[in-house]
């Protein structure tokens, strides 16, 4: 399970970083989403990976660490709000600047 978890994180992070370095806002937003997804999974994994152990004391012989789960929940909420905000901002910038390049102007496009 650890190996699968690690590979998933690696794939998510590398695709996230790759997309983040693209010049179009849409792929940047996708990259940010993947990256924050990877980060959330990482945070979750820091409470150690266990099966069959609820995060409630006394319900089973072994219990999972509840703190990373609470942290992940907070991080998800914040990340979700941020993604929504950056999508709206990207749309606003695309309308106002008339292109979707992250710099607001496309170096390869002929200026009008």
């Amino acid at each position: 399970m650890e190996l699968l978890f690690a590979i998933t994180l690696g794939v998510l992070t590398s695709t996230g970083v790759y997309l983040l370095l693209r010049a179009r806002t849409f792929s940047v937003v996708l990259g940010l989403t993947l990256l924050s997804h990877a980060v959330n999974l990482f945070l979750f994994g820091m409470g150690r990976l266990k099966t069959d152990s609820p995060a409630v004391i006394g319900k089973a012989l072994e219990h999972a660490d509840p703190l990373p789960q609470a942290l992940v929940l907070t991080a998800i909420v914040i990340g979700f709000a941020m993604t929504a905000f950056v999508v709206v901002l990207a749309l606003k910038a695309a309308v106002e600047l008339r292109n979707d390049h992250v710099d607001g102007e496309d170096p390869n496009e002929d200026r009008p």
Partner: protein
Amino acid sequence: MNHLVALPILIPLLAGAGLLLGYRLPLRLQRGLGILSCTLLTLLGLWAVQQAGSGDYTLYALGNWAPPFGILLVLDRLSAVMLLLTASLSLFCILYACRGTDREGSHFHPLFQFQLMGINGAFLTGDMFNLFVFFEVLLIASYALLLHGGGRARSRAGLHYVIINLVGSALFLLALGTLYGLTGTLNMADLAGAISAAPDTDKPLLVTAALLLLVVFGIKAAILPLLFWLPRAYSAASAPVAALFAIMTKVGIYAIIRIFMLVFGLGEAPIADAVWLWVWPMALATLALGGIGTLGAASLRTMTAYLVVVSVGILLATVALHDQASLAAGLFYLLHSTCLTAVFFLLADLVGRQRDRGYDRFSVISALNHRWLLGSLFFLAAVSMAGLPPFSGFISKLWILQASLPLTNGLLLWALVLGTGLLVLIALSRCGSGWFWRPPASTTTQRPLDPVRVGIVTAMIAVSIALALYAEPVMVYLDLTAQQILSPEQYIHAVLANPDALLAGGAP
């Protein structure tokens, strides 16, 4: 437990939430509520400085959960100074904004309050995860405040600013996850103990986490390879927002001081050594680049943004010297530079409103009304900023130079501080002489000069003069602050030694 400690977070939270619910209230009422909140925060800041002045740590355990399990607010000298600085700066900014800037877009006042809540929270918290949360609060508010007023320049600058800070947040979480995975705690005091006692096999991972945190705080504080978002963002923001943002880079500096001096600073060979190794050269490079940037800037707002970069460089260098006198001098410089960069952002707006064309651009030659008054204000501010006597800039720089002289790295700092000072002086005099010396004759268009706006800027310059006149008590206070920062054992002892006493005294 003293409930006043939680108020710097609660007042702006309640004011902001109330303003958001009452967004249909008449603007006058919204302004009143905003100004009231900022005034209360300033009074609280005075109380905090007085309270922390005794040298004790004032703790507040939320929900009566004892540390290291619950969320903790800690008020020490450094937090108190930062709280007072933020509150007084915000009071000037909101008064300036109430002269019309707040009408340019919607929801200015609630966003302003949430911004203050985030900043105050970051200064007070004693818990790493809450530092992250308050960073996010202040960032979300700053995204929206930066875009306040709309326009192409703001959208473009906003996009860069938001994306780079979102990546920063992701890195922050990675670092926090690593720290929690290794130590099982996120309370700063507890974490410090756990890190200093960590086995050698964990050291590389801890260094990784520390360096990741340095990147995150470096983005906030605008250290050299991570500062290129700053000039565009700060020069695009509306004047009072840019003036408030003068404190934002200092939040990054505060986090660097707090985390690397306290959390990673314990033990025989502290993890923080790996961080200081990077901070010192980067601080000097930031300082040099800031100086060159001020000379190359094309408008006063961009130049002020580079002045912010210069101040970050000097501050960080004094922090990296790891010496009580230099750190105290750096903190004095922090007060001075925050105040003065805010003054320049507001001055750029005042001048821009009086010019026929070009707003605050240097390349445009244009008639300027009220040349004498604005010129005198600019002159006073420039003298203080460049570090000439008799203002606070002179005292702070002299103190920094004096404190760094006996240190091995001191001479390098001397060369850069003085060299940058010269560049800043040249840039400021070029700007001032171009604008005020002999501009074209005033035009027939009468542009009334708002006396309140001028009054606010004058008051802020007066603060700088007062800081110079009453420098001694401030210097004594900051020296004790630096002493407190450099003895993290006291902090840890205060937080962890006797949790029962903390809770027993606090039954509400």
